[in-house]
């Protein structure tokens, strides 16, 4: 019997294998010296690998999904998957000492699963109860744990040591999909959710690639800022600009070139 998830897993394995064969990432000099990224050499290799797998497999599937499925249905599917994650939001809000948000998440799930037709429509948001975005990595952050070194996960993308631990907890502890006993169904849903999530990234991608001089670094710094913002629910304390005090000095005069007279002092 051929089942779709098994095919997907095989295709993924094949793509991974090809990607590994295809070569390695270019590692710039000084990699790993930045305090947030001591694992940079490893990270760049995995980032590069992820990009290859994405280009070979995940992105084409997501593009096909976007081309074939109408936007309204895609939004419905996306909402339905997010609806299943409300217990994750709720538990983590509770662990972060926000009981009223925890209750609101559960109410959202009840309302959206019924009136919202199995989560297809986010009627609760329209009624003034916005969706939370909580996970265990954020809970650990709220408890005072620093993100630790930046850490790129194979296939899953940007993370940190703290958030990797958090993800593991979410996947195995609070993600409802992992409680489905019917393995082919569970795997199908996990695969479908992956494609749903990848398709949601498609519009952002072009902008991101245009903006980034170094895609790896840009993704890293955006990830770390994004997570810090999430840990503080949109209001992180301001970081001091490290160079604010000493870079307001007037410009240096241009270095005298051989064919130019030395610069005149400013009037």
């Amino acid at each position: 019997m051929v089942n779709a998830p098994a095919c997907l897993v095989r295709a993924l394995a094949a793509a991974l294998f090809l990607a590994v064969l295809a070569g390695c990432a270019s590692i710039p000099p000084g990699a790993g010296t930045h305090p947030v990224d001591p694992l940079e050499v490893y990270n760049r290799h995995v980032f590069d690998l992820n990009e290859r797998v994405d280009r070979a497999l995940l992105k084409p599937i997501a593009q096909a999904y976007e081309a074939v499925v109408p936007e309204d249905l895609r939004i419905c599917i996306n909402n339905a998957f997010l609806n299943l994650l409300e217990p994750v939001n709720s538990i983590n809000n509770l662990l972060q000492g926000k009981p009223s948000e925890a209750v609101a998440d559960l109410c959202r799930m009840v309302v959206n699963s019924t009136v919202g037709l199995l989560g297809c429509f986010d009627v609760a948001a329209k009624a003034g109860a916005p969706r939370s975005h909580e996970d265990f990595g954020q809970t650990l952050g709220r408890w005072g744990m620093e993100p630790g070194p930046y850490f790129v996960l194979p296939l899953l993308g940007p993370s940190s040591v703290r958030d990797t631990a958090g993800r593991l907890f979410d996947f195995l502890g609070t993600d409802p999909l992992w409680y489905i006993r019917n393995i082919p169904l569970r795997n199908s849903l996990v695969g479908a959710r992956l494609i749903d999530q990848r398709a949601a990234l498609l519009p952002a991608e072009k902008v991101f690639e245009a903006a980034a001089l170094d895609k790896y670094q840009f993704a890293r710094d955006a990830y770390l800022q994004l997570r810090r913002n999430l840990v503080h629910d949109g209001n992180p304390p301001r970081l001091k600009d490290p160079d604010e005090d000493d870079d307001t000095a007037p410009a240096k005069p241009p270095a005298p070139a051989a064919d130019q007279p030395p610069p005149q002092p400013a009037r």
Partner: protein
Amino acid sequence: MSYTNVIASLALAAGLLGGVLPASSAQAQGSASAALSAPDVLVKKLSDDVLDSIRRDPGLQAGDIARLNALVDEKILPYVDFTKMTRLAVGRGWRDATAEQRQALTREFRSLLVRTYAGAVSVVKDHKVELRPYRAAPTDTDVTVRTQVVASRGEPIQLDYRLEKTEAGWKIYDVNVLGVWLVENYRNTFASEISRGGVDGLIKSLVERNKALEARTS
């Protein structure tokens, strides 16, 4: 997990920024009267104005660089301190840069941002900007104005601005989409470029990137 969905909003938000980010502080004297009003009022008015312009102009929605530059020059330039934005992003290297290098950095950085956002304005539909609660004393000279962008579909997107009070009124010098500050996000990249090839190396990278983007869009 929901993190990917949050990221997906980045493109949308980037489109909404339209030209809010990219502007140069050169000849930034324009309509100083609006710039003298309270910072939150200024941000609201500017956002509404830019969104409205994008909606009314099919050329902008199609990512026409010339039109976007015109929009930036006309509507946004007077309210953004782009030199400060560039200086903060360049960080330590700014001290060692000559006046010409500083000008080149500012010009190329602005150009990169205009080109980046040209690809994103097409997502603007029925979006509106709402101010989030604003706390600042009247004596403050450096403030953060928090807003969120709402649309009939999709979740609200956090979009914040940092402004500094200058003699010519309030000027935006940093923008934040979903918690990601623009200046902060370029700082490490710029520092690496400078450590590899000096300030000229960074200018060269910016110029090359802009050329590549130009080739892609034309």
